[in-house]
């Protein structure tokens, strides 16, 4: 399978703190890649290097390479807005805008210059269907997004991300603030999403990683300890530290 994102010797510093150390990884297209590891291991930081969301934090410095479709992400010529259009992101806790459900999904289209009503209507519906929430909200598109439940809000945020038609979707512990039923719905959604998108998901929950991801990467103290097919990582890890972690000896 083709590589969608390749990082080479990626290092990241918060001021003097060395948060990512020589991370090299090849993320496969149309797969779900799970990033696991104890909190503070750098998995979320790594995720945010892929769409350069770390740029918004003052004092961050990045060295090494991130290639998206063989194009260097960290070069001056990159327009980060174009990058983030291609590499969408869903956050840890649902963060819909204080607007209507419709406007939330249409937002991404409008900022990228798509304003024709018919087209917007069509993509909004498609995105809401894609995020498996259409049936729940189709009769109240004009209602405030803040009136939805937490699980619905998170699926709305996924729909909002789908609307700009990204290639890659980054998810930063998307179910950690949700109840089990909403979590299950989003996990089911994941296997649908990978047909059209490349999904990279940070999760704190190893069972979740085992259930939904095709590839798994284990991070510890800013290092990528081990990366491989999920079945291999969970059944016969090569590194002792990976084994300790997945057998629950720490973290």
């Amino acid at each position, binding site marked *: 399978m083709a590589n969608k994102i390749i990082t080479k010797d990626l290092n990241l510093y918060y001021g003097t703190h060395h948060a990512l150390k020589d991370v090299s990884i090849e993320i496969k297209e149309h797969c779900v890649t799970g990033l696991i590891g104890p909190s503070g291991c750098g998995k979320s930081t790594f995720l945010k290097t892929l*769409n350069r*969301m770390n740029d*918004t934090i003052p004092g961050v410095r990045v060295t090494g390479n991130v290639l998206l479709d063989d194009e260097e992400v960290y070069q001056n010529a990159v327009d*980060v807005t174009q990058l983030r259009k291609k590499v969408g992101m869903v956050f840890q806790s649902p*963060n819909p*805008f*204080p607007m209507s459900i419709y406007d939330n999904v249409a*937002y991404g289209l409008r*900022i990228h210059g798509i304003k024709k009503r018919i087209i917007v209507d069509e993509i909004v519906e498609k995105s809401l269907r894609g995020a498996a929430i259409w049936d729940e909200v189709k009769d109240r598109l004009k209602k405030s997004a803040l009136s939805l439940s937490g699980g619905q809000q998170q699926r709305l945020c996924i729909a909002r991300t789908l609307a*700009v038609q990204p290639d890659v979707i980054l998810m930063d512990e998307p179910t950690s603030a949700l109840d089990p039923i909403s979590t299950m719905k989003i996990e089911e959604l994941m296997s649908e999403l990978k047909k059209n998108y490349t999904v990279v998901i940070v999760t704190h929950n190893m069972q979740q990683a085992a259930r939904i991801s095709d590839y798994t990467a284990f991070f510890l103290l800013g290092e990528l300890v081990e990366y491989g097919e999920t079945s291999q990582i969970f059944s016969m890890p090569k590194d002792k530290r990976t084994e300790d972690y997945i057998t629950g000896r720490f973290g």
Partner: protein
Amino acid sequence: MKDHSILRSARTKSAVELVMHILFIVCGLLAVIAVLFISIYMIASGGPAIAKIGVFKFLFGQIWNPEAGQFGILPFILSSIVATALSILIAVPIGVGAAIFLTYMAGKKTGGIFLFIVELLASIPSVVYGLLGAMLVAPMIFKLQTMLSLPQSGSLLSATIVLVIMILPTIISVSASSLQAVPKTYNDASLALGSSKIQSIFKVLLPAAKSGIIAGIVLGVGRAIGETMAVMMVAGNAAMMPTLLGPVRLLTVGISLEWAYSSGLHREALYGIGLVLFVFIMIINIVLNIILKKGGKKA
């Protein structure tokens, strides 16, 4: 000990408690009493003149000539409304722009200095603004008036510019604090969808802070319509219908300008102007209250 100390101390204690409780109630109600008294006395002192002159003649009369017994305050009302509207129109974009700068673009140090400057602007007394207006703003308008072969005088435009300067700090600080209250996650979500910083600010963050900013604008309206000294020193103060480059007398100035030498019906008519101004202000306050309550509910 002959008296049982627990009982006794309980009695004196509860007496002290009671007295303090009553004192605090009185203090707490003072604002209510003050507003009540002000309302009553403004009506009691301003009402009779308006009745004597006639409500319609007073509010819609175009000529103010106390010597001739003519007390029409339409020019004052219109001048106040026009000056307030113009100054809000100019001050809002500047103020909101400066608030955006302060919240999203200034670094910590620049932001600190900028905030200090805004606070200083807010704390300069009216009369100092009047003086600055008379010495800096009015002469520029004089040149404009000469160019258009109009007589040199204080003007609506000068008054508007001074008012813009005076309401800016209110609009900046209220807008900035409502922008700061917008959750950072909105900004993250917007940026992650590929919007630029400016798109994020104008399409998500400003709308999210809308009710706070509107409250700031309404506060600014109250400030502008109530300002007296600074506009008195630059507006020319002739009791004429408002024109941009001509002298105008605002409602507030209508009261203070002739205060010292007025008596009888003339003084009563000034009270009447006070009542009209008071009604304007109370309407603004109620509107402000409604906006704040709505904003509070949403959050």
